[in-house]
C-alpha cells in the first residue's frame, strides 16, 4: 500500500532527528477517541507513559501535525491517580512549546507532570484536545435537498516524539452514513465507529494519513467575531452586551432557496441548515434583549433557572451554508453575584470567559470589561493565554473615562467557558461624582436664572 510506504519513509526520516528527552520516555499504550459528531472535533487521548531512562522526567511533549496545530483550540491533560474504584484526576500544566528541530513544522505542547516521573515508573494521562475548522465539506457546494458530507483528515497513528508500543484510534461519526475511509490495516467500521488499530510498536513520528468522508448535518455555527462588553456599575448591576457575527461554516448553499420545500418537507430539505440556537446565560439574568442593526428580533424564548438561564433564539432567517447573520444579545445580572472584594481590599470581577452559545466556534473573541470611572490598577487573571490591552471608554457623563480591560483570543470553543477574574481598585466616593455633577449643573442653571430675573440690565431708567 502506498500509504504504508509513505509512513515508513516519514518514520525513517523523522527518526533521524532525535531528542534527548524523547529517548527517555516511551508510551506503553495509547488510545485515541475522536468525536466527529459536531463541527468541533474532540479528541480524547489516553496515554500510558513509562520512563525508560535513568533520570526522572519532569515533563513530556505532545506533538501535533502542522495542519492541526493552527486549528487546535485547546489542549488539556489530566493525570490519573489511584486505582480503578478510587480514580481521581489531577489537572496538569500544559503550555505550547517550541522545539528547535521540529520535523515538518510539527507543533508541540509541553505537559508538566505533577511529580517528576522516576525511572521505570509509569503514569496514565488523559489528554483532551479540541480542533476547529477541521471538517472540510465535500462537495463544497450543496443544494437545499442534499445533506452535507465532510472530510476529516488525520493520522491513523498518534503523532508523538516517543515510541508507542501499542495504540488504537476510534473515529466516531454522527451517523452511519460513511462514504469512505482510508484503510490502514487493521481498520474496520461498525455502525458509527471506525476503528484503526491496534498497531504495535511504532517508532517516533510515525504518521499514517487517513481521510474519513462522512455525513455531518450538525449545525456548523461559526461566530466569525464576537465582541462581549461587560460593564460594571457599582450601583448594582452588570450589563453585558454581545455582538455576534454568525455564519454557517459548512458546505456552501447553491442555487435556489425554496420556502415551500423548506416548510413542507422539513426532514429532507435543508438538513444541514439551522435556524435555532441556544445561549446559556447566567442565572438571575434580567432585561434580556435580542436584536440586530435594524431592530428587535422577535423569535426568542428565555427560560430562567437557579443554575443557569437558557435563551432559545432564532436568527431572522434559517442559515444555510455560507449564509451570514449579525445580532446583538444583551442582558443584565445582579452585581453581587459577580463582584467580590479580595482580602487585600481590591475588588474583583469573577465572570465566565468564552461564548454563551452552545456548540459554536468563535474565530475571534474580544472581551471588554468596562470598569467604573475612577478605578485603578486593573489586572486580569485567566487560566490560558490571551492578548490583553487597555482602552478608555466614555459613557454617560464621564469626564476622565472608564478603563476598559480588553481580552482578545482567537479560536474559542465552549470548553473555554471558564471563570476569569479582573482585579481593580475603586473608591466608592467616585460613585457620587455623576449625581453631584448633575445636581450642581441644575443648581447653577437655577441660580443663573434667579440672578438674571433680579438684575436690571437696562441702560436707561424707565
Amino acid at each position: 500500500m502506498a500509504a504504508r510506504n509513505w509512513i515508513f519513509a516519514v518514520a525513517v526520516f523523522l527518526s533521524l532527528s532525535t531528542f534527548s528527552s524523547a529517548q527517555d520516555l516511551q508510551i506503553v499504550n495509547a488510545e485515541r477517541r475522536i468525536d466527529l459528531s459536531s463541527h468541533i472535533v474532540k479528541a480524547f487521548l489516553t496515554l500510558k507513559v513509562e520512563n525508560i531512562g535513568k533520570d526522572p522526567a519532569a515533563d513530556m511533549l505532545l506533538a501535533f501535525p502542522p495542519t492541526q496545530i493552527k486549528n487546535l483550540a485547546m489542549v488539556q491533560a489530566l493525570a490519573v491517580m489511584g486505582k480503578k474504584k478510587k480514580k481521581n484526576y489531577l489537572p496538569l500544566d500544559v503550555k505550547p512549546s517550541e522545539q528547535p528541530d521540529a520535523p515538518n513544522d510539527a507543533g508541540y505542547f509541553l505537559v508538566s507532570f505533577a511529580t517528576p516521573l522516576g525511572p521505570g515508573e509509569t503514569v496514565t494521562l488523559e489528554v483532551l484536545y479540541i480542533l476547529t475548522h477541521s471538517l472540510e465539506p465535500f462537495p463544497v457546494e450543496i443544494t437545499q435537498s442534499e445533506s452535507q458530507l465532510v472530510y476529516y483528515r488525520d493520522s491513523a497513528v498518534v503523532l508523538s516524539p516517543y515510541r508507542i508500543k501499542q495504540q488504537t484510534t476510534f473515529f466516531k461519526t454522527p451517523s452511519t452514513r460513511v462514504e469512505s475511509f482510508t484503510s490502514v490495516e487493521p481498520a474496520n467500521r461498525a455502525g458509527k465507529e471506525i476503528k484503526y488499530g491496534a498497531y504495535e510498536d511504532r517508532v517516533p513520528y510515525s504518521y499514517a494519513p487517513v481521510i474519513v468522508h462522512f455525513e455531518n448535518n450538525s449545525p456548523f455555527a461559526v461566530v466569525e467575531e464576537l465582541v462581549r462588553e461587560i460593564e460594571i456599575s457599582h450601583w448594582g448591576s452588570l450589563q453585558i452586551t454581545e455582538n455576534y457575527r454568525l455564519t454557517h461554516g459548512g458546505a456552501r448553499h447553491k442555487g435556489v432557496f425554496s420556502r415551500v420545500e423548506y416548510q413542507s418537507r422539513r426532514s429532507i430539505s435543508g438538513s444541514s441548515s439551522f435556524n435555532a440556537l441556544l445561549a446559556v446565560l447566567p442565572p438571575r439574568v434580567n432585561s434580556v434583549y435580542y436584536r440586530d442593526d435594524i431592530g428587535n428580533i422577535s423569535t426568542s424564548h428565555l427560560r430562567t433557572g437557579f443554575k443557569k438561564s437558557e435563551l432559545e433564539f432564532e436568527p431572522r432567517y434559517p442559515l444555510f451554508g455560507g449564509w451570514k447573520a449579525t445580532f446583538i444579545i444583551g442582558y443584565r445580572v445582579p452585581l453581587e453575584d459577580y463582584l467580590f472584594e479580595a482580602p487585600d481590599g481590591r475588588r474583583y470581577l469573577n465572570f465566565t470567559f468564552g461564548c454563551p452559545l452552545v456548540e459554536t466556534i468563535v474565530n475571534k473573541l474580544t472581551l471588554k470589561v468596562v470598569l467604573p470611572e475612577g478605578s485603578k490598577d486593573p489586572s486580569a487573571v485567566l487560566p490560558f493565554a490571551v492578548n490583553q490591552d487597555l482602552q478608555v471608554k466614555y459613557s454617560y457623563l464621564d469626564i476622565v473615562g472608564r478603563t476598559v480591560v480588553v481580552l482578545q483570543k482567537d479560536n474559542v470553543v465552549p470548553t473555554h467557558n471558564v471563570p476569569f477574574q479582573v482585579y481593580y481598585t475603586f473608591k466608592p466616593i467616585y460613585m457620587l461624582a455623576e449625581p453631584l455633577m448633575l445636581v450642581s449643573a441644575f443648581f447653577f442653571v437655577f441660580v443663573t436664572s434667579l440672578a438674571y430675573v433680579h438684575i436690571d440690565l437696562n441702560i436707561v431708567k424707565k
Partner: protein
Amino acid sequence: MAAVESLPPGTPSAMRNAFGTVLSALILVLIGVLAFSIRLFSVIKYESVIHEFDPYFNYRVTQFLSKNGIYEFWNWFDDRTWYPLGRVIGGTVYPGLTLTAGTIWWVLNAINIPLSVETVCVFTAPVFSAFASWATYLLTKEVKGSGAGLAAAALLAMVPSYISRSVAGSYDNEAVAIFALIFTFYLYIKTLNTGSLFYATLNAIAYFYMVCSWGGYTFIINLIPMHVLLCIVTGRYSPRLYIAYAPLVVLGTLLAALVPVVGFNAVLTSEHFASFLVFIIIHVVALVYYIKGILTPKMFKVAVTLVVSIGLVVCLIVVAVLVALVASSPTGGWSGRSLSLLDPTYASKYIPIIASVSEHQPPTWPSYFMDINVLAFLVPAGIIACFSPLSDASSFVVLYIVMSVYFSGVMVRLMLVLAPAACIMSGIALSQAFDVFTGSIKYQLSSKSKDDAEDNTSTKNAPKDDASSGKADKGEEVAKERLSKKGKKKEREPAEKPSVKSKIVKKKALVLPLEASIVALLLLIMLGAFYVIHCVWAAAEAYSAPSIVLTSQSHDGLHVFDDFRESYAWLSHNTDVDDKVASWWDYGYQTTAMANRTVIVDNNTWNNTHIATVGTAMSSPEKAAWEIFNSLDVKYVLVVFGGVIGYPSDDINKFLWMVRIGGGEFPHIKEADYLRDGQYRIDSEATPTMLNCLMYKLCYYRFVETDGKGYDRVRRTEIGKKHFKLTHFEEVFTSHHWMVRIYKLKPQKNRIRGRVKKLKQKTSSGVSSKSVKKNPWM
C-alpha cells in the same frame, strides 16, 4: 379668594401673579410631558424603531451626516439609489430634520451621552411635539391670552392628526416642521403685536428653519402675505404690520435661497410671487400713509389722483411682465404638488405618480372626525370668539383656519396643517366658554351670598372678571416687562386696553343662570374627556404601528410578522455589497437603509421614466422583463406578496399603478390588456397578459404548493394560473410568511454555443429538405 382680593393691593396681587406664572409654567411642563409620552405607545407596544418608508431615508441621511460631517453631507452624491443615475442628496433634500437630529446627537455625544443615531431619530418627533405645543401656547397667548394658550397647547399635545405624524419612530420632516410652522406664526403675531424688529428678525430665522424642514413652507409665505393684504384692505395698516412683514420677506427670501433644495426657486417660482406682490403693495400703502401724514387733506386728495393714475400704469406693466414670465413656463411656474392643491383634479389627470400616493388623496369625512375629533365642533365657536373683538392677531388665526381647511380638503396629508389651527380655535373657544361659565357661576354665587353688600358686587365683578380671564396674562405681562426690559409696554398698551375694556363690557352682559352654567360646564368637561379618550385610543391603536413589523392577535397570543426585516437582513448579509435590487419604488428607501443595497427606484419619485421602466418590467412577460432588468444591471428582484397571510398592501394590489405609470411612458403597456370588466383580476377570469406578466409570476411562483389550490387570502379567490415554471428568474429567498420574495436573474445563456447549435439545426434542416444526403458527422 375673596379674602385675598379684599386685602389692599401690593404684595398679595404680586403673589397671585407669581403664583399664576408658576402654575402656568408647571402646566406647560406637564403638557410637554404629555405630548412626549402620548407618542411613546409605539415604543412600548412595538419597539424603538424607525417607522414606515420616508423616515428610513431620513435616518440614513442622518447616519451619513453624523458619520461624515456637514460638508460631506452637502456634497453627498448617493450612488446607492436610482441606479445608474444616482441622486444628489445634499441638493435635493430638506435638511432641517436631519440637521436637527444630527445636532442633537452631536451635542449628546459631546457631553458623553452615548445614544445611538437611531435612538435620537426615534425620539426627535416626540420631543418636537412638546416644543410645538409650547409654541402653540405662545401663539394663542398672543391672540387671546394665556388661558386660551394653555387650552390650545393641551389640545395640540394630543391631537390625533399630529400624533399620526409624530409618534416615536416617525422620523419625518413634518415632525419638526409643525413646530417650525407654529413658531413662525407666533413670532409673526408677536412682531405684529409689539412692532419689535428683534422679533421680526427672529421671525425670519424661524421661517428659515421652516424652509429647511419642509416643502410646506410655501404655506407660510402665502398665508402671511394674505393676512397682510387683509389687514391693508380692512384698513388695519400700521407700522407694526410693516415691521412684521417687510423684514420677513427680505431676510426670509435671502435665507430661503441659502437652502440648496430651494435655491433660486425662492424668487423664481409662482409659489413665492404673492409675497413679493404684497411686499410692493405694503410699500405703496406705507408711502401713502406717510404722505397722508405730512400733507393736508386737500393736498392729499390731489396727490392721490395723481399717484393712482401713474401707479395704475406702472402696475399694469409689472403685472403684464409677470404674466408673460409665468406663462412662458409650461406649468405656469408651479410645481406639480402645488398645482394639485389649486386644482384638485390636476394630479389624477396628469401625474399618476402623485395620485398613486395614498396621502395625496382627498380625505373622507370620517377622517376629519378621526383626526381632529371634537375640535371640528369647537372650531366655529372659536372663530366667533375671534371676531369679538377682531384684532390683527385674531384675524390671522381666522385666516389660518380658513386656508388650512381648504388645503386639508384637497390632500389628506395637509390635515396636519389644519390640526394646529383647529387646536388654537378650540382652545380659544374652550377658554372663552369656561370664562363665561365660571364667571357667571361666581357672579351668581357672590350675588346670592352677599345680598347685604350689593354695592360691593358691581365693583368687585369688574376686577374679578379681569383677573379670571386675564390673570395669568397680566402676571405674564409683569414678568415679561421685568424679563426683557425692552419697554414694549408703550406699544402694547394701546392695542390691549380697548380689548380689555370691551371684554369687561361684554362680560357684564354675558351672565348666565347658575344651573345652566354648571350644566354647560359639565358638558364641556365631558366633551374634553371624550377628546382625551379618543386621542389616547388613536395614539395607542391607530397610529402606533411601525408598518415594517405587523402583528395580529390570534387565539394563542400575539403573532408577529417580521418578514420585511427578515428579507432586508438576508439581502444585507448574503448578497454582494454592489448588487442591485429592483423592486417597486415603495421599498426603495427601506432597501437602501436596511439592506444597504443599490436600488433602481425609491420613494423620492424624481424620475418618472425610471419608475415607468420598472413598472414596465413588472408588467411585461418574463423574457422582456429579464431584458429590461438585465440592461439595468439588476441582480435581484424583490416583490411583496400578501396572499399567504392576507396582507392587503402588497404588490398585486399596487399593480395597477405599475401598469398605469409604465404605460404612461411606454405605450406598448396597455392598461386594457390587464383588465377584465374594468377590474384587475388574478383568478381564472384574468387576462392572459395578466397571467403572464412578471409580477404575477413572481408573486405566485409555487404558491399553489402551500395549500394545494392556491387560494389568495387578500383577493379572496383562487389564482388563475397555478402551475408554471420560471425560465429567467430563480427564487433565492422567501420570507417566513411569504410576504417578501426575492428572485435572482439567471445568468445569460452561453451565447456562442446556443447560436452554433441553432445554426447547425437550421443548416441541417435546410440541407435535409434540399438533399437527402447527410453529413454523417452532423
